[in-house]
């Protein structure tokens, strides 16, 4: 398969889907399924041509292992989510533009990961940013897309600046050569500005504000793509900033923390802060989608720390966490979307007991959160295990403390939608609701199977990662048949799974041989001799962790700080406007002259 064909077909189908949706909404939705599945299969077959280089118009591409890996994850998220598209067309305000943007942004991500030079990368990157901005706008809130765009734009502009600055030294835009010859202060400036767009995209503190806004308010069918896919573009930039920009070599003479140069350690510390902030904020959300968005912030922290370690174990963990989080988070968002499809809400306090109406969706969500929380036998466990082992090897105590906090805190926040949405009392309004249809169930089941497979046979994914590690010149993680071996540990995920199955079987047998239990109604519970007949009143869902939330409810809110800054900037703008654009023209002339003189004097002095 040829990359040109994949890109061309997806872009053409994007345009076609726009017009087809005008004629028949559902057909347009199905076209996105076909196009994204085509891209997925095409990309999968592309593995054979790794190493090839070619150009289309001004764009030049190079097919690399790491690009293939990222693109596959991304298109997996797109193609699985696209199964939901046909069923949401009626609820969409502009279904035609949605489908168009959906496929266009997918084409953008594919092109970006295979870019050979920075100009190609930047153009495709911006295609994704712009098209996804317009999709987010189609959801619940217009403001969300402003937040998303502003944060993305800050990142993009900084990265563009870094690319230009690097160009002025090396004279080339080719990714592998552009950063050659940088040193000293210029290197630090380029490093931090270049990675800024990555940080903004992964949602690293203090850029994390866009995730809850955008994930929480985007159309239900786009949130899985945002969290499972687009966030990983940032990880790609982070990857480039330690490999294409050889940060460990350039900063090797600098002050080191536990063997890591300070600029890199600083970013890892930001990752650790993101884990803590994401976890604490996720715990207190009342909206299931916002909760999952904050969990993406926390998981982004793990990915950033893992990738920046650029070593044998932690790096493999970070790269593997990309897949695991993409799969788990897409599945979790899809499950919430499926519930929202039936109930029309994502607020946790307005639902309950959906397990009795939607058992399959429940299983999907359960497996997704087990993986997200890093519990065996799902994929998330293996990648977090690798990150922990990597951190323990280097003795990075504070990063590890944050990682542990996020890992155990994740039990708290992932359990909350499970308990509030799926378990507990079914609301009277929802007693007649049905499970979603097979076509919507299918992608969720595939993602669930992938989560389990990644946890039972992690080496399938890790083998690809060893090739990536070899391609960037670090020693690959040691793999035996089914086991992963690190300096300070050893994991045989398959045997863990078998033993878990063994324990489960024993428990099941004991359960079955005992007398069958009598089935009773959910309302038939112990209520301390109160008579409660309202299902809704017997469901504990809002302010789930109230005693814990109280401990940090006075903590400063980043979004409020940004809002205050925005108000101040607005006031400054008003002041300027009132001075320069008043009713009297002579006033304007006066201030322009004063400013002009002032500028001239300052210029003269400097």
């Amino acid at each position, binding site marked *: 398969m040829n990359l040109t064909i994949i890109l061309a077909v997806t872009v053409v189908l994007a345009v076609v889907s726009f017009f087809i949706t005008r004629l028949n909404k559902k057909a347009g939705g199905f076209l996105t399924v076909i196009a994204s599945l085509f891209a997925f299969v095409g990309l999968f077959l592309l593995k054979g041509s790794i190493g090839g280089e070619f150009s289309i118009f001004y764009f030049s591409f190079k097919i690399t292992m790491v690009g293939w890996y990222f693109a596959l994850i991304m298109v997996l998220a797109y193609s699985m989510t696209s199964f939901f598209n046909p069923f949401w067309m009626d609820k969409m305000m502009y279904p035609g533009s949605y489908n168009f943007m959906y496929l266009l942004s997918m084409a953008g991500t594919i092109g970006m990961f295979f870019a050979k030079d920075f100009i190609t990368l930047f153009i495709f990157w911006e295609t994704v940013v712009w098209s996804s901005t317009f999709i987010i706008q189609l959801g619940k809130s217009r403001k969300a897309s402003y937040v998303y765009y502003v944060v993305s734009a800050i990142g993009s502009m900084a990265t563009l600046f870094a690319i230009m600055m690097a160009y002025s030294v090396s004279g080339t835009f080719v990714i592998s050569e552009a950063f050659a010859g940088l040193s000293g202060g210029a290197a630090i400036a380029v490093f931090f500005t270049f990675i800024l767009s990555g940080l903004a995209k992964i949602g690293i503190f203090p850029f994390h504000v866009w995730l809850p806004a955008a994930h929480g308010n985007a159309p239900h069918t786009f949130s899985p793509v945002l969290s499972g896919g687009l966030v990983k573009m940032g990880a790609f930039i982070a990857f480039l900033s330690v490999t294409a920009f050889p940060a460990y070599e350039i900063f090797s003479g600098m002050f080191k923390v536990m063997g890591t140069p300070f600029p890199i350690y600083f970013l890892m510390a930001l990752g650790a802060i993101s884990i803590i902030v994401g976890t604490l904020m996720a715990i207190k959300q009342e909206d299931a989608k916002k909760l999952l968005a904050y969990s993406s912030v926390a998981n982004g922290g793990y990915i950033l720390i893992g990738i920046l370690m650029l070593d044998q174990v932690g790096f493999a963990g970070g790269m593997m966490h990309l897949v695991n989080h993409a799969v788990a988070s897409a599945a979790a968002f899809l499950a919430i979307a499926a519930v929202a499809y039936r109930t029309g809400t994502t607020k946790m306090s307005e639902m309950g007991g959906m397990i009795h109406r939607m058992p399959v969706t429940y299983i999907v969500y359960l497996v997704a959160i087990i993986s997200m929380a890093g519990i065996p036998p799902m994929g998330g466990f293996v990648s977090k295990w690798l990150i922990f082992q990597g951190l323990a090897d280097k003795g990075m105590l504070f990063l590890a403390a944050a990682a542990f906090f996020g890992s155990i805190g994740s*039990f*708290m926040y992932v359990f909350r939608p499970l308990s509030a949405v799926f378990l507990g009392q079914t609301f009277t309004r929802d007693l007649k609701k049905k499970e979603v249809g097979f076509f919507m169930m299918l992608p969720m089941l595939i993602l669930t199977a992938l989560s389990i497979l990644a946890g039972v046979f992690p080496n399938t994914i890790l083998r690809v990662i060893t090739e990536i590690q070899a391609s960037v010149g670090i020693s690959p993680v040691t793999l035996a048949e089914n086991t992963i071996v690190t300096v300070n540990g050893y994991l045989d995920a398959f045997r863990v799974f078998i033993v878990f199955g063994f324990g489960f079987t024993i428990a099941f047998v004991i359960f079955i041989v005992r007398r069958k239990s009598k089935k009773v109604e959910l*309302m038939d519970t112990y209520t301390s001799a109160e008579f409660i007949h309202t299902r809704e009143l017997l469901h504990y869902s809002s302010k789930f962790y109230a005693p814990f939330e109280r401990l940090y409810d006075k903590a400063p809110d980043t979004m409020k700080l940004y809002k205050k800054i925005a108000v101040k900037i607005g006031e400054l703008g008003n002041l300027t406007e009132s001075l320069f654009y008043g009713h009297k023209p002579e006033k304007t002339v006066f201030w322009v002259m004063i400013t002009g003189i002032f500028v001239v004097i300052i210029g003269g002095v400097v």
Partner: protein
Amino acid sequence: MNVMSFVYGFLVLLGVFVFQTTLTGLNRKVTARLQKRYGARWYQQFLDIFKALRKDSTSHGWVFDFGVIMALGGIMATVIFIPVAGFEAFPGLDNIFVISYLLAVGMLGMAMSAAGSGNPWASIGVARALTNMLAYDVPLMIVIFTLIFAFDSSSLSEIAALQQGMGILGWNAFRMPLGGIVAVIALLGMLGKKPFDSFIAPTEIASGPMVEYGGKHLGFMFILHEFMTFIEVSIILSLFFGGGATIWEYMLKYAVLYTFMNIISGVMPRFKIDQAVKYFYRVPLAMAIVQGLVVIFTGLGVTLWF
């Protein structure tokens, strides 16, 4: 991995069940004496479990049953991984992260089943239990992290073996005294002993997660509790008190540690859940970090320092 491993695993389960249930029975007596009561017979715990298994039960839907099975299954799998006096049914799988996260499968199953009962008391209990876990686990994991860094191993049996043969002062609890104290306090939290037992507070939230269980479900919960106790005490025993060179040494040390926990619990009042979090994030967390920094930067404790 062969058939014998599974047979050994099954025998480990049986042995652990008998041992821990007996110990629980004896400790009921100890607690009773602390409170100036006569106390139940030492085998009362067995009677309770088998009686519960024989009785009729009620079920609140499939997740209520499934969660119980998943909980007991996950916990039993974890027990099989625990090395006892150097013996492992499945050699090489006693990685500390595997054990502590596989334990979470059981806990998740239990939480799921409890919340699936539809009783708000159960959900409140689960919320408190998870908060409690966040409180004790972070300081404990930092100490465990320090151990892994110090000994370049995350295998329970290896870390236990490294402490043996040097007498009592070779135990990590004495090599790294701050870490040892943190581990013991965290063990109180893990076991749900007072002062960290607000999630099962019987008089306040009607036993929390346990509120809806009866009959065989309750029997399952009793068995699960015995296994969970064994896992938690064993982790701390292997990491900080040198495990045991022989099975008898192991059992003796285990009995002493567990009884000690019980005696502390017998004379303590109860923390509110937010007080527990505040407590763990003040004293033990600070101690764990100080211990970690000492080990990482000075190496004190890795080699014997006295």
